[in-house]
Protein backbone atom coordinates (compact mmCIF):
# COMPACT_ATOMS: atom_id res chain seq x y z
CA UNK A 1 0.00 0.00 0.00
CA UNK A 2 1.33 3.41 -0.96
CA UNK A 3 1.18 5.91 1.85
CA UNK A 4 -0.04 8.68 -0.38
CA UNK A 5 -2.98 10.76 0.75
CA UNK A 6 -5.90 10.21 -1.57
CA UNK A 7 -8.65 12.21 0.04
CA UNK A 8 -8.42 15.13 2.37
CA UNK A 9 -11.16 17.01 4.20
CA UNK A 10 -9.94 20.36 5.48
CA UNK A 11 -11.64 22.31 8.29
CA UNK A 12 -15.11 21.11 7.40
CA UNK A 13 -17.99 22.76 9.22
CA UNK A 14 -21.57 22.47 8.22
CA UNK A 15 -24.86 24.05 9.21
CA UNK A 16 -28.31 23.06 8.08
CA UNK A 17 -31.11 25.55 8.06
CA UNK A 18 -34.33 23.87 9.12
CA UNK A 19 -37.71 24.95 7.73
CA UNK A 20 -38.47 27.22 10.68
CA UNK A 21 -35.19 29.05 10.08
CA UNK A 22 -33.25 27.50 12.96
CA UNK A 23 -29.65 26.53 12.30
CA UNK A 24 -28.51 23.00 13.02
CA UNK A 25 -24.80 22.86 13.59
CA UNK A 26 -24.05 19.42 12.15
CA UNK A 27 -20.28 19.33 11.70
CA UNK A 28 -17.62 21.28 13.52
CA UNK A 29 -14.18 21.73 12.09
CA UNK A 30 -13.44 18.25 10.84
CA UNK A 31 -10.02 17.41 9.46
CA UNK A 32 -9.56 14.02 7.93
CA UNK A 33 -7.18 12.31 5.54
CA UNK A 34 -7.64 9.00 3.81
CA UNK A 35 -4.66 7.20 2.33
CA UNK A 36 -4.66 5.70 -1.13
CA UNK A 37 -6.10 2.20 -0.95
CA UNK A 38 -7.19 2.58 2.65
CA UNK A 39 -10.43 1.20 4.01
CA UNK A 40 -11.70 3.80 6.45
CA UNK A 41 -14.78 3.28 8.57
CA UNK A 42 -16.68 6.09 10.26
CA UNK A 43 -18.89 5.24 13.21
CA UNK A 44 -21.13 7.40 15.33
CA UNK A 45 -24.56 7.48 16.86
CA UNK A 46 -27.63 8.11 14.75
CA UNK A 47 -28.08 11.73 13.77
CA UNK A 48 -24.53 12.77 14.60
CA UNK A 49 -23.75 13.82 11.05
CA UNK A 50 -22.16 10.80 9.37
CA UNK A 51 -24.21 11.08 6.20
CA UNK A 52 -23.60 14.80 6.13
CA UNK A 53 -19.85 14.25 6.26
CA UNK A 54 -20.05 11.65 3.50
CA UNK A 55 -22.18 13.93 1.34
CA UNK A 56 -19.55 16.60 1.74
CA UNK A 57 -16.55 14.35 1.15
CA UNK A 58 -18.13 12.87 -1.96
CA UNK A 59 -18.95 16.33 -3.30
CA UNK A 60 -22.72 15.99 -3.25
CA UNK A 61 -23.18 18.99 -1.01
CA UNK A 62 -20.85 21.90 -0.40
CA UNK A 63 -19.84 22.44 3.22
CA UNK A 64 -20.64 25.74 4.89
CA UNK A 65 -16.94 26.02 5.49
CA UNK A 66 -13.94 23.99 4.42
CA UNK A 67 -12.67 22.13 1.42
CA UNK A 68 -12.33 18.62 0.02
CA UNK A 69 -9.28 17.59 -1.99
CA UNK A 70 -8.77 14.45 -4.06
CA UNK A 71 -5.12 13.77 -4.80
CA UNK A 72 -4.44 17.38 -3.86
CA UNK A 73 -6.98 18.96 -6.21
CA UNK A 74 -10.54 20.12 -5.56
CA UNK A 75 -12.94 17.23 -6.12
CA UNK A 76 -14.62 17.14 -9.52
CA UNK A 77 -17.14 14.57 -10.70
CA UNK A 78 -15.86 14.62 -14.23
CA UNK A 79 -12.15 14.57 -13.43
CA UNK A 80 -12.29 12.03 -10.60
CA UNK A 81 -14.12 8.75 -10.64
CA UNK A 82 -16.26 8.66 -7.52
CA UNK A 83 -18.43 5.78 -6.39
CA UNK A 84 -21.22 6.62 -4.02
CA UNK A 85 -23.61 4.23 -2.33
CA UNK A 86 -26.31 6.09 -0.52
CA UNK A 87 -28.14 5.08 2.62
CA UNK A 88 -31.34 4.73 0.63
CA UNK A 89 -32.16 2.45 -2.27
CA UNK A 90 -31.07 4.21 -5.43
CA UNK A 91 -31.66 1.72 -8.20
CA UNK A 92 -33.43 3.57 -10.99
CA UNK A 93 -36.87 1.91 -11.01
CA UNK A 94 -37.58 2.19 -14.74
CA UNK A 95 -34.27 0.68 -15.83
CA UNK A 96 -33.61 -3.00 -16.12
CA UNK A 97 -30.93 -4.25 -13.73
CA UNK A 98 -28.30 -4.48 -16.44
CA UNK A 99 -28.94 -0.87 -17.47
CA UNK A 100 -28.84 0.16 -13.84
CA UNK A 101 -25.47 -1.47 -13.37
CA UNK A 102 -24.21 0.09 -16.59
CA UNK A 103 -25.53 3.61 -16.02
CA UNK A 104 -22.19 4.99 -14.80
CA UNK A 105 -20.51 3.73 -17.94
CA UNK A 106 -23.36 5.08 -20.06
CA UNK A 107 -22.91 8.51 -18.52
CA UNK A 108 -19.23 8.35 -19.44
CA UNK A 109 -20.09 7.64 -23.05
CA UNK A 110 -19.15 3.96 -23.27
CA UNK A 111 -20.83 2.13 -26.15
CA UNK A 112 -23.79 -0.07 -25.31
CA UNK A 113 -22.13 -3.33 -26.27
CA UNK A 114 -19.06 -2.67 -24.18
CA UNK A 115 -20.93 -1.42 -21.12
CA UNK A 116 -23.31 -4.37 -21.20
CA UNK A 117 -20.34 -6.70 -21.39
CA UNK A 118 -18.81 -5.13 -18.29
CA UNK A 119 -22.12 -5.09 -16.45
CA UNK A 120 -22.81 -8.70 -17.33
CA UNK A 121 -19.41 -9.76 -16.07
CA UNK A 122 -19.93 -7.97 -12.75
CA UNK A 123 -23.40 -9.43 -12.38
CA UNK A 124 -22.00 -12.87 -12.92
CA UNK A 125 -19.34 -12.54 -10.25
CA UNK A 126 -21.87 -11.26 -7.74
CA UNK A 127 -24.44 -13.94 -8.41
CA UNK A 128 -26.91 -11.76 -10.25
CA UNK A 129 -26.78 -13.42 -13.64
CA UNK A 130 -30.20 -14.24 -14.93
CA UNK A 131 -31.59 -10.99 -13.59
CA UNK A 132 -30.24 -8.74 -16.34
CA UNK A 133 -33.65 -7.99 -17.81
CA UNK A 134 -35.57 -7.72 -14.56
CA UNK A 135 -36.73 -4.45 -13.10
CA UNK A 136 -35.57 -3.44 -9.59
CA UNK A 137 -38.93 -4.20 -7.98
CA UNK A 138 -38.49 -7.84 -8.96
CA UNK A 139 -35.35 -8.24 -6.82
CA UNK A 140 -34.97 -8.94 -3.12
CA UNK A 141 -33.43 -6.37 -0.81
CA UNK A 142 -30.08 -8.15 -0.72
CA UNK A 143 -29.94 -8.47 -4.50
CA UNK A 144 -30.72 -4.81 -4.90
CA UNK A 145 -27.84 -3.91 -2.61
CA UNK A 146 -25.57 -6.14 -4.66
CA UNK A 147 -26.70 -4.43 -7.83
CA UNK A 148 -26.06 -1.02 -6.28
CA UNK A 149 -22.58 -2.07 -5.20
CA UNK A 150 -21.54 -3.42 -8.57
CA UNK A 151 -23.03 -0.36 -10.23
CA UNK A 152 -20.63 1.74 -8.16
CA UNK A 153 -17.77 -0.60 -9.03
CA UNK A 154 -18.47 -0.64 -12.76
CA UNK A 155 -16.68 2.63 -13.44
CA UNK A 156 -13.72 1.42 -11.40
CA UNK A 157 -13.82 4.43 -9.06
CA UNK A 158 -10.77 5.81 -7.29
CA UNK A 159 -12.77 6.37 -4.12
CA UNK A 160 -15.94 4.63 -3.03
CA UNK A 161 -18.19 6.17 -0.41
CA UNK A 162 -20.66 3.89 1.30
CA UNK A 163 -23.34 5.05 3.68
CA UNK A 164 -24.53 2.18 5.87
CA UNK A 165 -24.95 0.04 2.78
CA UNK A 166 -26.16 -3.02 4.68
CA UNK A 167 -28.16 -1.24 7.35
CA UNK A 168 -31.61 -2.72 6.75
CA UNK A 169 -30.49 -6.24 5.81
CA UNK A 170 -30.67 -9.40 7.89
CA UNK A 171 -27.53 -10.75 9.57
CA UNK A 172 -26.91 -13.57 7.08
CA UNK A 173 -27.16 -11.44 3.98
CA UNK A 174 -25.15 -8.77 5.69
CA UNK A 175 -22.24 -11.10 6.44
CA UNK A 176 -22.33 -12.49 2.95
CA UNK A 177 -22.15 -9.04 1.44
CA UNK A 178 -19.45 -7.91 3.84
CA UNK A 179 -17.41 -10.86 2.72
CA UNK A 180 -17.94 -9.91 -0.91
CA UNK A 181 -16.95 -6.32 -0.26
CA UNK A 182 -13.75 -7.49 1.41
CA UNK A 183 -12.87 -9.78 -1.47
CA UNK A 184 -13.47 -7.08 -4.04
CA UNK A 185 -11.51 -4.53 -2.07
CA UNK A 186 -8.61 -6.86 -1.41
CA UNK A 187 -8.40 -7.44 -5.12
CA UNK A 188 -8.93 -3.89 -6.36
CA UNK A 189 -7.61 -1.78 -3.51
CA UNK A 190 -9.86 1.20 -4.15
CA UNK A 191 -9.95 3.79 -1.41
CA UNK A 192 -13.10 3.23 0.62
CA UNK A 193 -14.88 5.45 3.11
CA UNK A 194 -17.49 3.37 4.86
CA UNK A 195 -20.13 4.60 7.26
CA UNK A 196 -21.77 2.33 9.76
CA UNK A 197 -23.24 2.40 13.22
CA UNK A 198 -22.28 -1.24 13.68
CA UNK A 199 -18.96 -1.32 15.53
CA UNK A 200 -18.30 -4.98 14.77
CA UNK A 201 -18.84 -4.34 11.09
CA UNK A 202 -16.36 -1.48 11.18
CA UNK A 203 -13.72 -3.63 12.84
CA UNK A 204 -14.33 -6.52 10.47
CA UNK A 205 -13.83 -4.41 7.38
CA UNK A 206 -11.66 -1.41 8.03
CA UNK A 207 -8.00 -0.50 8.38
CA UNK A 208 -8.86 2.48 10.49
CA UNK A 209 -11.97 3.58 12.38
CA UNK A 210 -13.03 7.11 13.13
CA UNK A 211 -15.52 7.80 15.86
CA UNK A 212 -17.65 10.92 15.56
CA UNK A 213 -19.00 12.81 18.52
CA UNK A 214 -22.57 14.01 18.80
CA UNK A 215 -23.63 17.35 17.27
CA UNK A 216 -21.91 19.61 16.54
CA UNK A 217 -19.88 16.71 15.47
CA UNK A 218 -16.15 16.29 15.20
CA UNK A 219 -13.69 13.46 15.39
CA UNK A 220 -13.75 12.10 18.86
CA UNK A 221 -11.33 9.21 18.55
CA UNK A 222 -9.39 7.21 16.01
CA UNK A 223 -8.45 3.53 16.05
CA UNK A 224 -6.11 1.45 13.94
CA UNK A 225 -7.40 -2.04 13.24
CA UNK A 226 -4.43 -4.36 13.20
CA UNK A 227 -6.16 -7.60 12.30
CA UNK A 228 -4.24 -9.37 9.53
CA UNK A 229 -5.49 -9.49 5.94
CA UNK A 230 -7.11 -11.27 4.26
CA UNK A 231 -9.68 -11.29 6.99
CA UNK A 232 -12.03 -14.02 7.98
CA UNK A 233 -15.41 -12.60 8.86
CA UNK A 234 -16.42 -15.53 11.02
CA UNK A 235 -13.19 -16.25 12.89
CA UNK A 236 -11.92 -12.71 13.47
CA UNK A 237 -14.91 -11.91 15.64
CA UNK A 238 -13.55 -14.17 18.36
CA UNK A 239 -9.95 -13.02 18.29
CA UNK A 240 -8.64 -11.15 21.30
CA UNK A 241 -7.71 -8.03 19.39
CA UNK A 242 -11.19 -7.79 17.92
CA UNK A 243 -12.98 -8.14 21.23
CA UNK A 244 -10.74 -5.67 22.97
CA UNK A 245 -11.08 -3.05 20.29
CA UNK A 246 -14.83 -3.48 20.20
CA UNK A 247 -15.05 -2.94 23.95
CA UNK A 248 -12.82 0.08 23.78
CA UNK A 249 -14.90 1.77 21.04
CA UNK A 250 -18.11 0.82 22.73
CA UNK A 251 -17.02 2.51 25.99
CA UNK A 252 -16.19 5.66 24.08
CA UNK A 253 -19.40 5.72 22.09
CA UNK A 254 -21.60 5.05 25.10
CA UNK A 255 -21.49 8.52 26.57
CA UNK A 256 -22.02 10.01 23.08
CA UNK A 257 -25.18 7.98 22.73
CA UNK A 258 -26.37 9.08 26.13
CA UNK A 259 -25.70 12.67 25.13
CA UNK A 260 -27.64 12.18 21.92
CA UNK A 261 -30.60 10.68 23.80
CA UNK A 262 -30.74 13.60 26.19
CA UNK A 263 -30.56 16.06 23.35
CA UNK A 264 -33.41 14.34 21.55
CA UNK A 265 -35.52 14.31 24.70
CA UNK A 266 -35.03 18.03 25.02
CA UNK A 267 -35.88 18.79 21.43
CA UNK A 268 -39.13 16.80 21.46
Amino acid at each position, binding site marked *: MKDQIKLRALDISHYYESKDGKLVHALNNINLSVKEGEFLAIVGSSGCGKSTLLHIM*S*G*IINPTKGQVLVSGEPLS*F*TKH*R*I*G*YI*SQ*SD*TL*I*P*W*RKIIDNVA*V*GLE*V*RGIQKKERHRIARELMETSGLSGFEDK*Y*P*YELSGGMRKRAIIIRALA*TNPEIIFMDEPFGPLDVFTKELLQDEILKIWEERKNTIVYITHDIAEAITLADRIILMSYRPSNIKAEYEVNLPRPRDIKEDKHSKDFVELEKCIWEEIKNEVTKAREEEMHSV
Partner: protein
Amino acid sequence: MKIKERIIGRFYSICFIGILLIAWQFVANREIINTFNFSSPIEIIKDLIELFKSGEIWPHIRISFGVSLLGLLYGTIIGIFFAFLFYNFGILSKILDPIMVGFNGLPKLAMGPVFVVWFGIGLKAKIVMSTITVFFPVFFNAYAGFNSTDVNLIDTLRVMGSSKFQIIKKIMLPSCIPWITASLRGGAGAAVTGTIVGEYLGATRGLGWMVQSAGGVYNITRVFSCLVILLVLMAFIDSTLKQGERYLLRWRQ
Protein backbone atom coordinates in the same frame (compact mmCIF):
# COMPACT_ATOMS: atom_id res chain seq x y z
CA MET B 1 -58.94 -14.87 -10.64
CA LYS B 2 -58.60 -11.25 -11.66
CA ILE B 3 -59.42 -12.02 -15.28
CA LYS B 4 -62.49 -13.94 -14.22
CA GLU B 5 -63.72 -11.05 -12.13
CA ARG B 6 -63.18 -8.70 -15.04
CA ILE B 7 -65.13 -10.88 -17.46
CA ILE B 8 -68.02 -11.18 -15.02
CA GLY B 9 -67.96 -7.41 -14.53
CA ARG B 10 -68.02 -6.85 -18.30
CA PHE B 11 -70.87 -9.29 -18.69
CA TYR B 12 -73.03 -7.52 -16.14
CA SER B 13 -72.41 -4.08 -17.57
CA ILE B 14 -73.29 -5.30 -21.07
CA CYS B 15 -76.50 -6.87 -19.68
CA PHE B 16 -77.35 -3.63 -17.95
CA ILE B 17 -76.88 -1.53 -21.08
CA GLY B 18 -78.84 -4.10 -23.07
CA ILE B 19 -81.77 -3.91 -20.68
CA LEU B 20 -81.74 -0.13 -20.82
CA LEU B 21 -81.79 -0.14 -24.62
CA ILE B 22 -84.61 -2.69 -24.75
CA ALA B 23 -86.61 -0.67 -22.25
CA TRP B 24 -86.02 2.47 -24.31
CA GLN B 25 -87.17 0.72 -27.48
CA PHE B 26 -90.19 -0.68 -25.67
CA VAL B 27 -91.45 2.64 -24.36
CA ALA B 28 -90.81 4.18 -27.77
CA ASN B 29 -92.85 1.47 -29.54
CA ARG B 30 -95.70 1.84 -27.07
CA GLU B 31 -95.53 5.61 -27.63
CA ILE B 32 -95.13 6.17 -23.90
CA ILE B 33 -92.45 8.64 -24.87
CA ASN B 34 -92.49 10.94 -27.84
CA THR B 35 -90.06 9.52 -30.41
CA PHE B 36 -89.72 12.94 -32.00
CA ASN B 37 -88.05 14.17 -28.83
CA PHE B 38 -86.45 10.96 -27.59
CA SER B 39 -85.84 8.89 -30.73
CA SER B 40 -85.28 5.15 -30.27
CA PRO B 41 -82.36 2.70 -30.44
CA ILE B 42 -83.52 1.20 -33.73
CA GLU B 43 -83.89 4.64 -35.34
CA ILE B 44 -80.40 5.53 -34.18
CA ILE B 45 -78.90 2.32 -35.48
CA LYS B 46 -80.61 2.86 -38.83
CA ASP B 47 -79.26 6.39 -38.95
CA LEU B 48 -75.78 5.22 -38.07
CA ILE B 49 -75.85 2.58 -40.78
CA GLU B 50 -76.89 5.17 -43.30
CA LEU B 51 -74.22 7.62 -42.19
CA PHE B 52 -71.49 5.04 -42.60
CA LYS B 53 -72.92 3.50 -45.77
CA SER B 54 -73.02 6.81 -47.56
CA GLY B 55 -69.62 7.61 -46.08
CA GLU B 56 -70.66 11.15 -45.33
CA ILE B 57 -69.66 10.78 -41.67
CA TRP B 58 -65.97 10.05 -42.25
CA PRO B 59 -64.72 13.58 -42.94
CA HIS B 60 -66.43 14.78 -39.75
CA ILE B 61 -64.91 12.03 -37.64
CA ARG B 62 -61.53 12.64 -39.18
CA ILE B 63 -61.66 16.36 -38.43
CA SER B 64 -62.83 16.02 -34.83
CA PHE B 65 -60.47 13.15 -34.11
CA GLY B 66 -57.52 14.93 -35.68
CA VAL B 67 -58.15 18.19 -33.88
CA SER B 68 -58.53 16.36 -30.56
CA LEU B 69 -55.28 14.48 -31.08
CA LEU B 70 -53.44 17.66 -32.01
CA GLY B 71 -54.83 19.35 -28.92
CA LEU B 72 -53.76 16.43 -26.79
CA LEU B 73 -50.29 16.46 -28.33
CA TYR B 74 -49.72 20.22 -28.10
CA GLY B 75 -51.29 20.49 -24.66
CA THR B 76 -49.07 17.71 -23.34
CA ILE B 77 -45.84 19.05 -24.81
CA ILE B 78 -46.49 22.63 -23.76
CA GLY B 79 -47.67 21.48 -20.33
CA ILE B 80 -44.49 19.48 -19.70
CA PHE B 81 -42.34 22.29 -21.04
CA PHE B 82 -43.90 24.89 -18.74
CA ALA B 83 -43.76 22.53 -15.78
CA PHE B 84 -40.07 22.08 -16.48
CA LEU B 85 -39.50 25.85 -16.66
CA PHE B 86 -41.42 26.40 -13.43
CA TYR B 87 -39.49 23.67 -11.70
CA ASN B 88 -36.12 25.02 -12.76
CA PHE B 89 -36.76 28.70 -12.24
CA GLY B 90 -38.06 29.17 -8.73
CA ILE B 91 -38.81 32.85 -9.27
CA LEU B 92 -41.01 32.06 -12.23
CA SER B 93 -43.13 29.71 -10.19
CA LYS B 94 -43.38 32.17 -7.30
CA ILE B 95 -44.64 34.92 -9.60
CA LEU B 96 -46.83 32.85 -11.87
CA ASP B 97 -48.17 30.12 -9.59
CA PRO B 98 -51.20 32.10 -8.44
CA ILE B 99 -51.91 33.19 -11.99
CA MET B 100 -51.78 29.60 -13.21
CA VAL B 101 -54.09 28.45 -10.45
CA GLY B 102 -56.43 31.31 -11.30
CA PHE B 103 -56.51 30.50 -15.01
CA ASN B 104 -57.05 26.88 -14.21
CA GLY B 105 -60.11 27.81 -12.18
CA LEU B 106 -61.52 29.68 -15.17
CA PRO B 107 -64.08 27.72 -17.17
CA LYS B 108 -61.96 27.35 -20.29
CA LEU B 109 -64.86 26.35 -22.49
CA ALA B 110 -66.53 29.63 -21.70
CA MET B 111 -63.62 31.36 -23.42
CA GLY B 112 -64.60 29.70 -26.70
CA PRO B 113 -66.13 32.79 -28.27
CA VAL B 114 -62.95 34.72 -27.55
CA PHE B 115 -60.90 32.14 -29.45
CA VAL B 116 -63.32 32.27 -32.34
CA VAL B 117 -62.80 36.03 -32.49
CA TRP B 118 -59.03 35.64 -32.28
CA PHE B 119 -58.51 32.65 -34.52
CA GLY B 120 -61.60 32.59 -36.73
CA ILE B 121 -63.96 29.68 -37.25
CA GLY B 122 -61.32 27.57 -38.93
CA LEU B 123 -59.49 24.68 -37.33
CA LYS B 124 -57.11 26.93 -35.44
CA ALA B 125 -59.65 28.04 -32.84
CA LYS B 126 -60.60 24.42 -32.11
CA ILE B 127 -57.02 23.27 -31.81
CA VAL B 128 -56.35 26.14 -29.40
CA MET B 129 -59.44 25.22 -27.39
CA SER B 130 -58.51 21.61 -26.97
CA THR B 131 -54.84 22.44 -26.39
CA ILE B 132 -55.74 24.74 -23.53
CA THR B 133 -58.10 22.29 -21.89
CA VAL B 134 -55.37 19.64 -22.01
CA PHE B 135 -52.58 21.98 -20.97
CA PHE B 136 -53.67 22.66 -17.40
CA PRO B 137 -54.06 19.14 -16.02
CA VAL B 138 -50.82 18.07 -17.70
CA PHE B 139 -48.98 21.13 -16.45
CA PHE B 140 -50.00 20.70 -12.81
CA ASN B 141 -49.30 16.99 -12.84
CA ALA B 142 -45.93 17.27 -14.53
CA TYR B 143 -44.97 20.05 -12.13
CA ALA B 144 -45.86 17.85 -9.17
CA GLY B 145 -43.91 15.06 -10.89
CA PHE B 146 -40.74 17.12 -11.24
CA ASN B 147 -41.02 18.21 -7.64
CA SER B 148 -41.28 14.65 -6.45
CA THR B 149 -38.16 13.48 -8.28
CA ASP B 150 -36.02 11.41 -5.92
CA VAL B 151 -33.05 13.61 -5.05
CA ASN B 152 -30.99 10.54 -4.24
CA LEU B 153 -31.30 9.36 -7.84
CA ILE B 154 -30.18 12.73 -9.11
CA ASP B 155 -27.21 12.69 -6.73
CA THR B 156 -26.29 9.18 -7.77
CA LEU B 157 -26.02 10.30 -11.37
CA ARG B 158 -24.29 13.56 -10.54
CA VAL B 159 -21.55 11.74 -8.69
CA MET B 160 -21.02 9.55 -11.74
CA GLY B 161 -20.20 12.69 -13.68
CA SER B 162 -23.52 13.23 -15.49
CA SER B 163 -24.22 16.46 -17.28
CA LYS B 164 -27.37 18.45 -16.46
CA PHE B 165 -28.88 17.29 -19.73
CA GLN B 166 -28.22 13.63 -18.94
CA ILE B 167 -29.89 14.02 -15.56
CA ILE B 168 -32.96 15.55 -17.15
CA LYS B 169 -33.14 12.83 -19.76
CA LYS B 170 -32.33 9.84 -17.60
CA ILE B 171 -33.95 10.79 -14.30
CA MET B 172 -36.27 13.78 -14.33
CA LEU B 173 -38.36 13.11 -17.40
CA PRO B 174 -38.81 9.38 -16.74
CA SER B 175 -39.78 9.97 -13.13
CA CYS B 176 -42.48 12.32 -14.40
CA ILE B 177 -44.03 9.69 -16.64
CA PRO B 178 -46.46 8.21 -14.07
CA TRP B 179 -47.71 11.72 -13.32
CA ILE B 180 -48.09 12.62 -16.97
CA THR B 181 -49.87 9.44 -17.97
CA ALA B 182 -52.22 9.94 -15.03
CA SER B 183 -53.15 13.35 -16.40
CA LEU B 184 -53.32 12.22 -20.02
CA ARG B 185 -56.43 10.10 -19.76
CA GLY B 186 -58.29 12.96 -18.16
CA GLY B 187 -56.65 15.25 -20.68
CA ALA B 188 -57.93 13.21 -23.61
CA GLY B 189 -61.50 13.69 -22.46
CA ALA B 190 -60.75 17.38 -22.11
CA ALA B 191 -59.31 17.49 -25.64
CA VAL B 192 -62.41 15.97 -27.20
CA THR B 193 -64.71 18.22 -25.18
CA GLY B 194 -62.65 21.25 -26.18
CA THR B 195 -62.88 20.27 -29.83
CA ILE B 196 -66.62 19.61 -29.78
CA VAL B 197 -67.44 22.82 -27.97
CA GLY B 198 -65.16 24.65 -30.38
CA GLU B 199 -67.19 23.19 -33.23
CA TYR B 200 -70.49 24.19 -31.61
CA LEU B 201 -69.35 27.75 -31.65
CA GLY B 202 -68.74 27.97 -35.32
CA ALA B 203 -67.59 25.43 -37.85
CA THR B 204 -68.51 23.91 -41.16
CA ARG B 205 -67.45 20.38 -40.38
CA GLY B 206 -66.84 18.03 -37.47
CA LEU B 207 -68.94 16.01 -35.08
CA GLY B 208 -69.63 19.06 -32.90
CA TRP B 209 -70.96 20.90 -35.92
CA MET B 210 -73.11 17.89 -36.84
CA VAL B 211 -74.64 17.75 -33.37
CA GLN B 212 -75.25 21.47 -33.49
CA SER B 213 -76.87 21.53 -36.90
CA ALA B 214 -78.96 18.38 -36.32
CA GLY B 215 -80.18 19.85 -33.02
CA GLY B 216 -81.06 23.04 -34.86
CA VAL B 217 -83.56 21.16 -37.05
CA TYR B 218 -84.81 18.92 -34.21
CA ASN B 219 -83.20 15.83 -35.71
CA ILE B 220 -82.74 14.15 -32.35
CA THR B 221 -81.90 10.78 -33.90
CA ARG B 222 -78.92 12.35 -35.63
CA VAL B 223 -77.81 14.00 -32.41
CA PHE B 224 -77.85 10.62 -30.67
CA SER B 225 -75.98 9.02 -33.56
CA CYS B 226 -73.24 11.58 -33.19
CA LEU B 227 -73.13 11.00 -29.44
CA VAL B 228 -72.72 7.28 -30.01
CA ILE B 229 -69.85 7.95 -32.39
CA LEU B 230 -68.26 10.28 -29.84
CA LEU B 231 -68.64 7.64 -27.17
CA VAL B 232 -66.86 5.07 -29.29
CA LEU B 233 -64.18 7.61 -30.18
CA MET B 234 -63.55 8.40 -26.52
CA ALA B 235 -63.46 4.74 -25.60
CA PHE B 236 -60.95 4.13 -28.37
CA ILE B 237 -58.66 6.95 -27.28
CA ASP B 238 -58.95 5.93 -23.65
CA SER B 239 -58.11 2.31 -24.24
CA THR B 240 -55.19 3.24 -26.48
CA LEU B 241 -53.84 5.52 -23.75
CA LYS B 242 -54.38 2.78 -21.20
CA GLN B 243 -52.32 0.39 -23.31
CA GLY B 244 -49.65 3.03 -23.70
CA GLU B 245 -49.65 3.68 -19.98
CA ARG B 246 -49.31 0.00 -19.21
CA TYR B 247 -46.33 -0.19 -21.54
CA LEU B 248 -44.64 2.93 -20.21
CA LEU B 249 -45.10 1.88 -16.60
CA ARG B 250 -44.13 -1.75 -17.06
CA TRP B 251 -41.35 -1.22 -14.52
CA ARG B 252 -43.88 -0.74 -11.77
CA GLN B 253 -45.21 -3.43 -9.53
